[in-house]
């Protein structure tokens, strides 16, 4: 079953006329003067009071020892999945809050039904209770990787750089991220698009065990990702991608409500599609509201290959449901009056019910859970809707 290209961009042309400035003079049009060869590259801000690290776990947090030099300044939100009577030991010296299933039930009451149990999808509870502007989430089997020169990669620092610098979703830059030192926009790139848009999501990658699905793992059990691709790029507007939650950062104030990781695990017919679901919803909403999603650096070292037979059971339905899900997301049209993430998300939930309910009743439940999630989010975060008019984060 081949897809004809049935996707259409949300509204052509991509340069909304109200944002097109007249051609500025040369100095103005180019990247900010701080990029001139004379200026030194300013260090990445720590953002230690503006960023929470959310970690789902069911076992232990030993992996944090390796991350200590990079993570210690930050507040951690640990979401303990599985048996709440078990004690998860957090290494000394970290500032954290920990939530187990009892806490989730207590805090959300009946709305706790939208948070998955026995699946790392429960991590999105951490996004909801955080009070910070940015979130970094990482799996407990992900360690510090080394770059080709042998140096340890501070993944968090790279994610922060990605989030604080603009994205360029409207036109692809062939030299990838134009805001990186040593790079720029190429010939032919319109000057009116060179300011970019705010970055909502920074999607990192993995060396060693790649994020393959179960069938691929079964066919290639020994394949390891050894290729370090030294690039960050904006995923173009109108293009969907498989978002992996293993090494992911986002601007919670911008896109938080869209980062619902769905109904997975215990009592659900599907698993390992939590981050995929969040990624498709997030990308559609970012495209609609004019924000960017980046992918590429940083790499982490993914150490554990989960059991492919267990994975196959979890993913089985997802593998054939995604054939319906992709055309669905490619054709979602959000009306102009959806000007906040919450409104966009509720609208998507309605369309899920209307169009995917007939694929499986699971999608009716999921659509309801999406609404519950937004209600819970708004209750816990009553500061009001995040509008699309939010100004750019501080860029480099």
């Amino acid at each position, binding site marked *: *079953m*081949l*897809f004809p*290209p049935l996707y*259409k*961009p949300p509204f*052509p*042309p991509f*340069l909304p006329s109200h944002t097109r400035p007249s*051609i500025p003079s040369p100095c103005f049009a*180019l990247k900010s003067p701080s990029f*001139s*060869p004379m200026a030194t590259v300013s260090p990445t801000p720590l953002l230690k009071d503006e960023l929470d690290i959310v970690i789902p776990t069911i076992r232990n947090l030993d992996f944090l020892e390796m991350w200590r030099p990079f993570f210690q300044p930050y507040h951690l939100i640990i979401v303990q999945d599985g048996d709440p009577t078990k004690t998860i030991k957090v290494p000394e010296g970290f500032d954290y809050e920990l939530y187990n299933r009892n806490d989730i039930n207590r805090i959300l009451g009946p709305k706790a039904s939208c948070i998955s149990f026995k699946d790392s999808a429960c991590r999105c509870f951490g996004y909801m209770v955080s009070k910070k502007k940015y979130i970094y989430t990482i799996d407990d089997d992900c360690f510090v990787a080394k770059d*080709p020169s042998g140096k340890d990669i501070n993944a968090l620092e790279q994610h922060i750089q990605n989030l604080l610098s603009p994205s360029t979703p409207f*036109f*692809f830059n*062939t*030299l*990838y991220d134009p805001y990186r030192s*040593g*790079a720029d*926009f*190429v*010939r*032919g*790139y*319109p*000057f*009116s698009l060179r300011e970019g848009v705010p970055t909502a999501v920074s*999607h990192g*990658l993995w060396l060693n065990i*790649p*994020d*393959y*699905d179960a069938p*691929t793992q079964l066919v*290639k059990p020994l*394949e390891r*990702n*050894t290729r*370090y*691709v*030294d*690039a960050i790029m904006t*995923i173009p507007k*109108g*293009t*969907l*991608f*498989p*978002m*992996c939650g293993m090494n992911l950062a986002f601007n919670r104030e911008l896109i938080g409500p869209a980062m619902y990781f769905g109904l997975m695990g215990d009592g659900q017919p599907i698993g*390992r*599609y939590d981050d*995929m679901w969040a*990624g498709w919803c997030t990308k559609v909403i970012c495209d609609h509201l004019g924000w960017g999603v980046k*992918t590429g650096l940083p790499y982490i070292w993914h150490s554990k290959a989960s059991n492919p037979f267990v994975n196959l059971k979890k*993913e089985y339905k997802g593998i054939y449901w*995604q054939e319906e899900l*992709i055309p669905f997301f490619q054709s979602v049209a959000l009306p102009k009056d959806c000007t906040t993430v919450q409104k966009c998300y509720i609208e998507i939930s309605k369309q899920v019910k209307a169009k995917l309910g007939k694929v499986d009743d699971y999608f009716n439940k999921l659509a309801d859970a999406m609404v519950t999630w937004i209600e819970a989010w708004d209750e816990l975060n009553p500061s009001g809707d995040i509008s699309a008019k939010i100004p750019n984060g501080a860029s480099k």
Partner: protein
Amino acid sequence: MSLSIKDDEIDIVIGALRPDLTSFMNEWRTIFSRFHLIIVKDPDLKEELKIPEGFNLDVYKKPDIDRVVGTSTSTIFSGYSCRYFGYLVSRKKYIISVDDDCYPAKDNKGILVDAVAQHITNLTTPATPFFFNTLYDPFTEGADFVRGYPFSLRSGVQCALSCGLWLNLADYDAPTQALKPEERNSRYVDAVLTVPARTLMPISGINIAFNREVIGPALLPSLRLGGEGKFRWETMEDIWSGMCVKVVCDHLGLGVKTGMPYVWRNDRGDAIASLRKEWEGVKLMEEVVPFFQSVRLSREATTTEDCVAEVANVVKEQLGSKDPMFARAAKAMVDWVKLWKSVGSSTSSPGA
């Protein structure tokens, strides 16, 4: 190099804008010498070409161009556009085209990059424009489709165009290079990726390869800046052509890849001197990009020639009145399709 592609299915087309190609050819010898080359001399270049021995090549100069297309038409092949004459007269399936100021590059391990082999690999493995793979090219050794990639999209589509990159002197416009005169691209990104459907990008003519049988007529000389010059900073012809190609590929369900191979682009010219000339091109892009983003071709356009003709029509209708340059470009596109049909070998195979 894919074992199924024979050397005689490939033409290497070089536009000669400078007369002495000795060091250029010698640097590329180990990579180029097994292939047939088409060297097209810029009709404006007065000096004789100097080409070293030991290559299998055909050289076309102004008198040859005049003879094939007529003296009035041959003006379209001036400057960097001379390479299109090579595409026109080639009879091969694959064309690889590199600017004459580029040498082979070295990869991160210090090994010389066989740009021809990489381009051919890009063209002969599928492209995946309908969904982004976060591990980039899934068909390369050591990589695959990631979790969440729909299975029905994993066979991909035919790749029609392979866009390579440049180390050292990157393809910046004059204002950018003038602001950062010392900046050189030293970042070797070990990836090839498919440019998603409906996503446009500036396609540089410095280092490209394409399947001539499938997409040949869509690479065309048509937009010529009033002050077009002999440095890439002073042109937009390839950027315009590239937008057409991408729109046509998207319509016909063909893929475009970008990334490796890299070539080493030598320092040449003065960005500040070019600054004045190229400003015109920079302003044009503000119109050109939203225009191409909005172009939709009809269902009846099932061949590349038909697609190009339709794009030309839309250019004439929507852009023609804004600047005479666009009106001329539209006419040039229509003329090109006629020329391709009469001179070029027939390529009416519909897109994949």
